[in-house]
């Protein structure tokens, strides 16, 4: 819809998986899982509402559809936001602060430890990134960096504050695809 959809689609294709772009409710019918990419969360949230995507996505996610939100996507799946009441899906029991590390000149790349992906550190790209400040019971914290949480899972839902789609490392996409396979 808006943001880094091309990069996510390319990463999925490298994993041997088909990808389609979702812009309207009808596009949701044939999918096995949904990725909400990095982009501008205010823009994407508004378009989700204006074109009637919010309700069908919520219904499908409650029904077990695997959903992965990265950066802006993590903001959109959060129930609670610090200092914002922008339109969103609000699926996961997490509290997120937008632009938590500052503006673009403060954006950074760093290698982080993500135990569920193995010993090898993961190259994480943080662009005007949010931070998960709190995860309620039932939410599994999969990775932390500095004072914040950066990767969480809650059943069929996954959220990362960084951009796995901007790196060559496909392990997080493969992890999500395993969630999809488990469901099926």
């Amino acid at each position, binding site marked *: 819809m808006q943001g880094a959809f091309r990069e996510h689609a390319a990463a999925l294709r490298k994993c041997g998986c088909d990808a389609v772009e979702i812009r309207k409710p009808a596009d949701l019918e044939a999918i096995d899982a949904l990725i909400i990419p990095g982009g*501008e969360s205010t823009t994407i949230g508004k*378009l989700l509402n204006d074109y009637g995507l919010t309700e069908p996505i919520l219904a499908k996610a409650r029904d077990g559809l695997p959903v992965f939100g990265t950066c802006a996507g993590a903001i959109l799946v959060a129930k609670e936001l610090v200092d914002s009441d922008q339109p969103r899906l609000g699926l996961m029991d997490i509290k997120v602060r937008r632009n938590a590390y500052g503006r673009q000149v*403060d954006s950074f*790349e760093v290698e982080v430890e993500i135990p569920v992906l193995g010993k090898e550190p993961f190259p994480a790209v943080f*662009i005007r990134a949010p931070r998960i400040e709190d995860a309620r019971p039932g939410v599994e914290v999969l990775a932390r960096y500095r004072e914040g949480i950066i990767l969480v899972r809650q059943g069929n839902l996954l959220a990362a504050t960084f951009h796995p789609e901007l790196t060559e490392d496909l392990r997080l996409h493969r992890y999500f695809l395993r969630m999809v396979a488990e469901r099926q």
Partner: protein
Amino acid sequence: MEEAKGTWKLKKGLAEMLKGGVIMDVTTPEQAKIAEQAGACAVMALERVPADIRAAGGVARMADPDVILKIMDAVSIPVMAKARIGHFVEAQILEALGVDYIDESEVLTPADESHHIDKHQFKVPFVCGARDLGEALRRIGEGAAMIRTKGEAGTGNIVEAVRHMRTVMDEVRRLQNMPPEELMAAAKNLGAPYELVKEVASLGRLPVVNFAAGGVATPADAALMMQLGADGVFVGSGIFKSSDPAARAKAIVAAVTHYNDPKILAEVSRGLGEAMRGLELSTITPEERLAVRGW
């Protein structure tokens, strides 16, 4: 673990996040809020929109830092600002203010007739205008992490943006179909770095995000540019020079998302009031053309 800032991946990455979005020119915090509420993915902070710059004449410079800071305070989306071509000190000032992207722009009066800014020296990313592939690749070679067509800013006339987008796309397609041994001669003819020419030939597109700009006034203009291959759209004077900016801004955002859906385009084009007046290109003297600034 060491954190790396201001890297090529981060600069290019922010532009990737803007894809499929609309970046709007704003001159006040109120306009910035209207743009954000309409769904803009970023705003360009200016003292005057291009149509007013064109009308005012004189030397057009970087905006007053006060204007830029107030706009940065007003919205949560990325804020861009313009520096004059070659004016690396304006760029240093904009970087110090903390803007998210700098547009080295032909809309302002050029400060250097021979050299653009060495954009590799900055942590903040740059977007630059281009009329053809050679110009785009020269700017990327200097460190631009995002490209836009120049179009003819402040005219509300899409014809130049179409020309520039078609030219770039046509040259990309030609490179894509060339055998490798012809790429060096192509680089020479384009006046573009060989490594970037090779990259374009293998990717089949520019190595960075490519937006349309300069003359977008209606949802149909925006969708036209998207169908021609733009990754997103800048709207300058087109929104706040129209009779109902909030409605027009929202309609252009919808048109960029649903650029391939004529039914939605028809729906959002209704009842927007008057578009900006617009200028026929033949009424502008060659000296008044902004697109010819830079090389």
